[in-house]
């Protein structure tokens, strides 16, 4: 009500700016935290840049995944716990399409179709969304928890399919009439032997000169082999650009009549149907779009990693994305980005970073090899050191415990996420008295409320 003096466009811009500022401030705090602790530890510049690049990478992938999941769960109320399945299909189909033909040299056991990388990316996204369609068609008509069961089962089916020896390698017809040896590599994984996607993108944009300049610049501060550092930094920036693109797309999707129906489906599907909305159509489109975005996230995560194995796509990765979304607050795009960033920085990368920090500050000795030697000095001679060292050494395993504890705490104390209750209006225009000319000139809520009391419309029942 305090914004009544501003034009709607100004209000919108101001609100958007606020959200952007929130995200920027959070990123600043995270980066500053990593930089400062790195400085305190006397990390080399190379180490600093590497840790920033990998932090950016994980912020980027978790933010994109949380945004895509927010479309499913936050907007439409679709309980998808098969996120990894769609990621896996995305990267595997992309690899299938874009890997070079078999026999063109290299160590790969199987080839691909040898098509350009953008074609592969598009194919991967389409495959993920088609899989989403297949999953959604029978399941969307059932209750939400059935969709959950179907999606998690699907993600395991996808993993086992890529693990199976049946699809390890097979012949695939080519355009020229012959066949070529392709496959998904089975349990030993698939070598992603297509050209480096980032360099290909830079070439395509005609920015090779600028990139070489950047490498030279990094070379002035890190003389020894600056190329990988520049590469991972630029890739991180590209990922943040993808986050921005997802944000734009999903904000527009949410702030529209389409998004309004999605929200109504989340709240009460019967009402939406009674108002003439074909809710199945909306749910399927929403689900397929989210799946395509998850497929792209999977591609972006793995296409630069050199190889992919099916067991990367275990269900726990799905739950990581869920934790990120819950931290940020389901239903909010801004929250999704922030949740992805916090999850990546604190819960995903944080424990390992903490381990490195403690190890390099205190220079402790070797940790005991198992739980017995770790706990017995604590009991026999009240010496906690072996136990603490063992705990520190097991931080990778404890990470999951910490995530579980955080999740339980959040659900109890802050189920609406770090931003609290968010109003992200589902309309293409700001909804308010200024939007239409029909409202009375005095729009003050107080006088309206007073008038209401006069008429007695408090909703009191007649009895």
């Amino acid at each position: 009500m305090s914004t009544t003096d501003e034009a709607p466009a100004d209000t919108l811009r101001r609100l958007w700016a606020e959200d952007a500022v929130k995200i920027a401030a959070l990123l600043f705090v995270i980066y500053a935290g990593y930089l400062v602790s790195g400085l305190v530890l006397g990390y080399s510049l190379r180490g600093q840049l590497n840790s920033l690049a990998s932090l950016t990478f994980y912020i980027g992938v978790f933010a994109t995944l949380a945004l895509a999941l927010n479309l499913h769960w936050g907007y439409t109320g679709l309980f998808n716990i098969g996120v990894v399945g769609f990621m896996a299909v995305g990267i595997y189909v992309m690899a299938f399409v874009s890997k070079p033909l078999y026999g063109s040299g290299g160590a790969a056991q199987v080839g691909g179709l040898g098509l350009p990388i953008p074609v592969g990316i598009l194919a991967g996204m389409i495959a993920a969304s088609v899989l989403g369609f297949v999953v959604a068609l029978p399941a969307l008509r059932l209750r939400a928890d059935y969709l959950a069961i179907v999606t998690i089962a699907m993600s395991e089916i996808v993993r086992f399919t890529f693990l199976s020896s049946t699809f390890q390698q097979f012949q695939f017809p080519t355009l020229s009439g012959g066949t070529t040896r392709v496959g998904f590599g089975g349990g030993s994984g698939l070598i992603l032997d297509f050209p480096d996607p980032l360099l290909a993108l830079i070439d395509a944009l005609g920015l090779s000169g600028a990139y070489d300049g950047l490498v030279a610049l990094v070379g002035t501060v890190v003389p020894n082999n600056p190329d990988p550092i520049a590469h991972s930094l630029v890739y991180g920036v590209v990922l943040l650009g993808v986050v921005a693109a997802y944000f734009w797309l999903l904000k527009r999707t949410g702030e529209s009549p389409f998004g309004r129906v999605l929200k109504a489906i989340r709240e009460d599907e019967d009402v939406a149907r009674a108002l003439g909305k074909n809710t199945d159509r909306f749910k399927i489109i929403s689900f397929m779009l989210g799946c395509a975005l998850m497929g792209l996230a999977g591609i972006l995560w793995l296409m630069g990693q050199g190889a992919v194995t099916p067991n990367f796509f275990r269900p726990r990765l799905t739950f990581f994305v869920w934790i990120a979304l819950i931290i940020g607050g389901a239903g909010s795009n801004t929250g999704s980005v922030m949740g992805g960033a916090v999850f990546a920085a604190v819960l995903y990368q944080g424990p390992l970073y903490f381990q490195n920090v403690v190890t390099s500050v205190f220079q402790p000795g070797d940790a005991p090899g198992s739980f017995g030697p770790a706990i017995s000095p604590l009991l026999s001679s009240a010496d906690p050191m072996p136990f603490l060292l063992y705990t520190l050494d097991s931080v990778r395993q404890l990470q999951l415990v910490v995530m579980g504890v955080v999740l339980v705490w959040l659900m109890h104390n802050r189920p609406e996420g770090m931003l609290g209750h968010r109003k992200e209006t589902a309309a293409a225009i700001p909804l308010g008295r200024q939007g239409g000319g029909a409202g009375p000139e005095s729009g003050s809520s107080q006088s309206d409320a007073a008038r209401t009391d006069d008429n007695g419309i408090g909703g009191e029942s007649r009895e």
Partner: protein
Amino acid sequence: MSRVSESITGSRPDVSDTPLRVEDLTKRFGGITAVDGATFEVERGTLTGLIGPNGAGKSTTFNLITGMLSPDEGRVIFDGEEITGLEPHQIANRGLVRTFQIARELGEMTVLENMMLAPMNQRGEHLWRSVLPGARGGVVTQEEELLDRVWETLEFFEIEHLAEEYAGNLSGGQRKLLEMARALLTDPDMLLLDEPFAGVNPTLEQRLLDHIHELRDQGYTFLLVEHDMDLIMNNCRHVIVMHQGRILTEGTPAEIKSNEEVIEAYLGGDV
């Protein structure tokens, strides 16, 4: 079944005067027959009352007509076309729109969002129009038009001061108003109102009734489930009485009032 079809063919000429016709509608839940061969029709441009004691099958009948439930037997004909077994959204799109007995506001959406949802076939309900930069202009224009209509309707129902409130924060009576306002925004030919006045104060109830009569004069048709006998008797020209899933009787309020069977069924024979 053949008897039923004959009767329909026989009455085709005046089909336009009876937009809604229900024939032999039956619905069983396990061993309970909630609606048992209900047959009635509603005349165009009237306010028809559907009354009956609790458990008479009124709400189930509504659910069967609007596609929320599918009948075990019988047919529903709207505007001369059979709509039995159609999806709820298909029925709503033909101009037959309902409200719910227990107001079903969309709690985490504001009153304005609730209202903006209702108008049918909005351009921006197609994802590509809402997202593509070139097409979004048309969506925005339509949103502005819709918003004007929404404000008019909100003002008519005197809930405009609640416009930016979450619907979940509204009181019971306010939710009823929101629900009816929302249903009207779909631009229906016929409205099925399931106890629309429960929890609405008498002043507003009268206003709503006036509005309903006004809309009826314009050609809208209403079928109204209500517990308040006086309200039904004073406002409806035709009253249908249900009891234990069957249509007990129908007629003018005067006829219903003097019907011993109705009094016995409705009041348990105490009066």
